[in-house]
């Protein structure tokens, strides 16, 4: 009888230990968006399992906080979020219910990408919601500048090193590799995009501000009259006047947005509508972080009738 009790206790203890301390030594890294996940995959290599909560095709402001995400976050060693209020509408209750102190704010396992990049469009005057979904901390779509990707890779590496010191040299090598790759590809992309520098564009949402800044495109206006506010007839009229006056021939938008207004604007002004993904996974060609820019550059050049050198 006592032996049986002992056996049961050992079994129960073993089960608990197996649950509490999984034998898999890989770090379990969860990213809020696929861009951040893609960068984390480059840094973590085969010593990190990386999962993205949002999908590349969906609006990252309005992700459903599915209960399965609670389970995923419960098992996380690290959570990478964009920050700057990008995920404010869905991530906080998931983190609360995940019961995982490792991913709470201030912990090494909570990586906030916005902390390491220079945010654009930070409001300098008074703001309120009559201005639409304005972000008090600045534009959160910053992964579309490859140099920000480098800074984020560096931060992810630093934190993974804290979480798994033994693998630090591996993460450091990976981070250096991805940063070098970004540098060399950026040089190529900028060379390819040189003919498009100074091109005036209108975008649907303020999703491409960082891309435009890096590659020298001029975003004159957005189809949304204010961030997150759907197009109105009066704004469309003003936009047509402005596009004609300024000679805007390019409208950039994500593939999932409504296409009626951009098509109407294009028809009225002779501009072309070009759809480019704003995140990794936003189209099938944008499978990883570098492929995202390869695809964007290729799409823009094809539209402009330029041949790849």
């Amino acid at each position, binding site marked *: 009888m006592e032996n049986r009790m002992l056996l049961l206790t050992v079994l129960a203890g073993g089960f608990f230990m197996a*649950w509490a301390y999984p034998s898999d030594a890989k770090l379990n890294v969860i990213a809020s968006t696929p861009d951040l996940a893609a960068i984390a995959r480059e840094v973590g290599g085969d010593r990190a399992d990386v999962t993205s909560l949002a*999908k590349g*095709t*969906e*609006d990252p*402001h*309005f992700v*459903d*906080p*599915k*209960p*399965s995400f*609670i*389970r995923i976050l*419960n098992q996380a060693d690290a959570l990478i979020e964009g920050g700057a209020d990008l995920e*404010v509408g869905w991530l*906080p*209750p998931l983190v*609360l*219910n995940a*019961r995982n102190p490792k991913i*709470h*704010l*201030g*912990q*090494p396992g909570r990586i*906030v990408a916005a*902390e*390491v990049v*220079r*945010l654009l469009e*930070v*409001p*300098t005057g008074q703001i309120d*919601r009559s201005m*639409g*979904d304005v972000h*008090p*901390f*600045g534009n959160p779509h910053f992964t579309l500048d490859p*140099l920000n990707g480098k*800074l984020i890779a*560096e931060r992810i590496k*630093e*934190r993974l*090193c*804290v979480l798994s010191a033994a693998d630090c040299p591996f993460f450091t090598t990976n981070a250096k590799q991805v940063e070098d790759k970004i*540098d060399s590809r*950026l*040089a190529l992309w*900028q*060379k390819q995009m040189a003919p498009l520098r100074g091109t005036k564009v209108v975008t649907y949402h303020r999703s491409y501000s960082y891309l435009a800044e890096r590659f*020298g495109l001029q975003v004159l206006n957005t189809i949304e009259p204010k961030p*997150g*506010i*759907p197009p109105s007839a009066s704004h469309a009229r003003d936009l047509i006047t402005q596009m004609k006056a300024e000679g805007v021939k390019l409208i950039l938008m994500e*593939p*999932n*947005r*409504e296409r009626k207004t951009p098509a109407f604007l294009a028809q009225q002004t002779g501009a072309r509508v070009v759809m480019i993904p704003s995140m990794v996974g936003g189209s099938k060609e944008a499978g990883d972080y570098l492929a995202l820019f390869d695809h964007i550059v290729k799409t823009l050049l094809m539209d402009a009738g330029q041949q790849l050198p």
Partner: protein
Amino acid sequence: MHTRIYACAVLFVLVSGGWPQTAFAAPTGTEIEDLKKQMAVMEEQLRFLRRKVEQLETQPSSAAPEAPTENKGIKTEQRLKDLELQVGQQKAASRGLLSPFNPKISVNGIFSAAMFSDKDNLNFGDHDPQVQGFNVQNVELHLQGTVDPYFQVDTNIVTTVKKGDTTIELEEMYGTSLALPANLQLVAGQYFTRFGRQNRQHPHQWDFADQPVILNRLFGKDGLRGPGMQLSWLAPTPFYLEFIANAQQAQGEIATSFLSKPGETIRGYSLLDRPVQKIGDLLYMPRVVTSFEPTEELTVAMGGSTLFGPNASGPNNTTIIYGGDLYVKWKPVDHVKGFPFVAWQTEYLFRDYEAGPDNANGIPADRLKDFGLYSQLVYGFYERWAAGVRIDYVNSSGGGAAVPFLISQAQRDLAGERWRLSPNLTFYPSEFSKFRLQYNLDFAESRRREAVHGVFLQVEFNIGEHAAHTF
């Protein structure tokens, strides 16, 4: 120059939340380990910022070899100014109005214009459109903040206005644990019972303008809530599975199926003044809830709950309520602002109420049984627009021995068969406001099954920083 760089770096670290707050608590062994880790992170941050500034100084030549001419023109001095400005702005933004430690505050108001075909209509919920003309359905002040490394607190203070009289009540204030071990989470304070799906939701989360009939009948006009403690456990399964154990005080109009209010009646049975005297006089609830995703666009959440506790129709009488809930949501992977979507929500409840005997009125003991369900389908068919339809059905048995004059019309309306059909259309100008038009077609046994019609035009405003909702 260097002084400025370091000042910048230190400011940035402080703003980015790198300062370990736990340093002020008496450290234990594990906390010292944590502190060491956090110090390491801070040192890394400082090193990183130093590198970043150096990088900025050498840009564009090192970062982007083919950098365009306008990038080259940006002087390091200007970059540093940008960085300083950014730090200042982030600091200002993160401090909010006064302090980052203030709770998040939001106020939500729901108002409606209502027309009924019968002036004694069948909308009994406190937050329903209840009277002809204009109604203040619910004004809610929500505050949320973190107490310390161990608890987050949510507070809801609710105001309603009935016939010009304003009432303010503490609807909820509860703490949720942040750091219990073994996947446990504690909720303590006053809160809505996590029975089913809608009982814990506030009116601005509802997809319809009024409370489902079965929830009103079993949980009262305000929903079931009270002071108590709840412990939940997230099971270590590959899918989401959570077990909840809950104990709450069962008194007042917020616990009508249980100890309720002395002097009230239920189908002729007078309710006694039955205070809580022993541990068995509390309200207990086990609940299990799970969720899975058959496809990447489809999410299913379902749960089962049982409530048992004392009722005040006798000194040892009890009530049991069983419930099942199902929520299925389809949302495509390429949605914009959450549209389009289809959400189907259904709850079924059954109550077994051990009533009497009421010796004063000569009514023998009986079992009052109630059951009912509501099922609603909402289709977000276009960005900002949603159309929904809900069907309610309830019925009851038992309690027929009381002479009719002992049973008020209000009590008669809470028994017998009733069904209701409610189509609606909602327009969201933004995620902070909405307009909703709803029609109710209502048939109740207590009203000789004659149709009662209701039309509501509801408007909602939300200001401030409202905490995100759960799924």
